């Protein structure tokens, strides 16, 4: 440990200017995020890119300073303990990259009124997850290269291999089977890359097998890229992460006992029906969310198959419904087939707040505020920074009424807003708008003492794809 600290101090002397730059970037990002939670603009995406590039370059330079890949490095014939050398590098990365990331997130949480101690564990885990790709790849590639030029070349080559193989695989597979964002990069497919990277770092510092390790990194990237489009890996990941979840037990069908509701016309080209959906076998504490493209067709005895115009699978106060828009037809009963891609989300309530104007305290999770940027669209804006896996969904409920913002990761900018600069899947500082606004419902809710907002975390546990068939869909005029 003494030697590791000695090497660490040397590296600080060597790289303090680069550390200052990276810390400055984290600070700028943190301030921008803080402004965003106060309804300011989002940080420019280029800032997150700069942080990523800055961190990767710093890690690569740090490793090249005492490179294990160099043919005849200075340290190899000096009394260095190899594990002390690795420990010194990891300590440096922890102090100058991971710590600023963590501190930046904690400060934003504090600013947003989040109970930091209550969320410390999840925030730490979350930031460790970010470190997996912000730090680990640079660590693995930096360990088997000797210059920044070589580092950049190998990084580009690995990324290119990853995307080429994934692209090639997707061209030859039925990707419609992928039903959730969780399928895109799943645990099983990422495993070869993660294990290879960890193994590469450890083995390179222990035994300096540069050529072998370079080759194994390339093989691991190609293997991971090949596994991503395979359905088996996605379902295996789901089973590992959610051992009790069995997608085959979930049965979904149109509920023929409830008549279809005519909803609205589709630009004069068709009609939209809201059809009740019967869901059985859904695990307790989970809901269904539509993800990805749906497809379907209608056909009748008199007309051939025609593609449906739109399909929206939604959760309502009456249960699940499928809003299907189909082309105009004078035909006799139509048979409808709708293939829906759904994500099963586990739901955890986070806070229940009275539905009233002004600032609301969302338990340990920060503050929310009812704001009305446009007359027709009342929003509930929350500066939440709670580290969650999955998304936060807001709902307005009172007896006989329940509406939830239907989209995952919904916010005022139409995209996800990450807390940490590298996060993809984390909610914070977003605002919620119910479909078509909450104006009327909110006006009514304000007059009711029993109305309340519900904030809940929705986390994907698996994906399913089902074909729903409605045998006799009758148009109002054909009924006549």
């Amino acid at each position, binding site marked *: 440990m003494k030697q590791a600290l*000695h090497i660490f101090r040397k590296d600080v002397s060597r790289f303090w200017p680069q550390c200052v730059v990276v810390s400055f970037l984290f600070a700028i990002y943190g301030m921008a995020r803080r402004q965003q939670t106060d309804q300011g603009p989002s940080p420019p995406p280029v800032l997150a890119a700069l942080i990523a590039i800055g961190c990767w370059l710093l890690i690569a330079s740090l490793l090249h*300073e005492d490179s294990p890949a160099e043919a005849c490095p200075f340290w*190899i014939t000096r009394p260095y303990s190899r594990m002390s050398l690795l420990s010194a590098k990891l300590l440096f990365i922890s102090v100058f990259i991971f710590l600023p990331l963590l501190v930046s997130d904690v400060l934003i949480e504090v600013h947003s009124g989040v109970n930091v101690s209550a969320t410390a564990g999840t925030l730490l885990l979350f930031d460790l997850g970010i470190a997996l790709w912000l730090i680990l790849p640079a660590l693995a590639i930096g360990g088997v290269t000797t210059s920044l030029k070589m580092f950049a070349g190998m990084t580009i080559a690995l990324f290119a291999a990853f995307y080429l193989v994934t692209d090639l695989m997707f061209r030859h597979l039925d990707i419609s089977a992928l039903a959730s964002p969780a399928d895109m990069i799943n645990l099983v497919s990422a495993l070869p890359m993660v294990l290879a990277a960890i193994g590469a770092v450890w083995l390179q510092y222990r035994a300096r097998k540069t050529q072998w390790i370079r080759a194994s990194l390339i093989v691991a990237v190609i293997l991971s890229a090949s596994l991503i489009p395979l359905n088996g890996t996605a379902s295996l990941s789901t089973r590992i992460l959610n051992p009790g979840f069995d997608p085959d037990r979930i049965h979904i069908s149109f509920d023929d006992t409830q008549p279809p509701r005519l909803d609205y016309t589709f630009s004069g080209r068709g009609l939209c029906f809201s059809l009740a959906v019967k869901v059985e076998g859904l695990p307790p504490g989970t809901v269904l969310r539509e993800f990805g493209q749906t497809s379907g067709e209608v056909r009748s005895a008199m007309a051939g198959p025609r593609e449906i115009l739109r399909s929206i699978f939604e959760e309502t106060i009456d249960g699940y419904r499928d809003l299907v828009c189909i082309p105009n037809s004078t035909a006799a009963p139509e048979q409808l087939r709708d293939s829906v891609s759904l994500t099963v989300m586990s739901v955890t309530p986070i806070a229940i707040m009275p539905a009233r104007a002004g600032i609301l305290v969302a338990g340990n999770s920060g503050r929310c505020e009812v704001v009305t940027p446009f007359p027709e669209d009342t929003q509930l804006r929350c500066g939440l920074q709670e580290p969650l896996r999955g998304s936060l969904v807001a709902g307005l409920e009172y007896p006989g009424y329940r509406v939830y913002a239907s989209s995952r990761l919904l916010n005022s900018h139409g995209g996800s807003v990450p807390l940490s600069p590298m996060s993809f899947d984390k909610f914070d500082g977003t605002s919620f708008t119910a479909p078509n606004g909450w104006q009327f419902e909110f006006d009514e809710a304000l007059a009711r003492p029993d109305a309340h907002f519900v904030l809940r975390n929705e986390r994907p546990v698996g994906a399913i794809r089902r074909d729903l068939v409605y045998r006799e869909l009758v148009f109002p005029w054909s009924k006549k």
Partner: protein
Amino acid sequence: MNYPIRCVDLSKKFRRVQALDHLNLEVPEGAIYALIGANGAGKTTAIKTMMNIHEPDGGSVEIAGKDSRHMRGHDFESIGYVSENQKMPEWMTVDYLMRYLKPFYPTWDDGAAAGFIRKFGLPGDRKLSQLSRGMKMKAALASSLAYHPKLVVLDEPFSGLDPLVRDEFIEGLMESAEETTMLISSHDLAEIETFASHAGYLEHGRMQFSEEMSSLSARFREVEVTLGEPTGLPGNWPAEWLQPQTSPAVVRFIDTRFDENTIGERVRRLFPRMTDLSTRAMPLREIFVALAREERRAA
């Protein structure tokens, strides 16, 4: 006798190139061993294998009785290694380099370090990147001698150094010579001859000879035979007599197994009309050139 370096049947291959081919080498304790050989003979590979920079494909190296493959960290506390191929932390100043290395060595001697810096005329506040090649080598040597290593391994330390720097470098080495064993690979045979106690000649990864300098200089002689009348070379020319040259009445060659008691008799057997015989001791450089030429001729 103790041998701080012992290579037994050491082999190393780089793809198709056999860099070391069953190399056997023993460096006795207290020796200053000169490892000589033409470019590509395998000197640097041998040294890097000894230092566990390369792993041998066959055979073994023992450094102070320990298999080189198992050498780690603290084994280098008593070994000094200087090579022109080694990457140095160029951003460090000379003083910082010394301060940085000190905690790694329990036997670090501040007085010795300061002495070497003074002797070599190294500017303490100058970064290594701003030093000339010779100064860098001197800084590397100072940082490798300041802890009184028991074994010093130098890979081509003199190449490219001007005569003044070379002399200072050698003087620095000689200050530590009494307490250490040294292995030096070099082309600078004229310099090495002045202080080496042993020499080994490497050719195509194999050790051709390895012996004390005194016995080496004793067994190599340039021989000049004056004849009464012009005579060609006889057919039964001994293999140990290299590079025979004839002029009408003179024959010159290099005897690689010189024995002053028998040389006269052996020459007379081939040249009965010999009128005069003279021999001249050869410097290491000439021995090396003769052997290298012979090697090329044989190839």
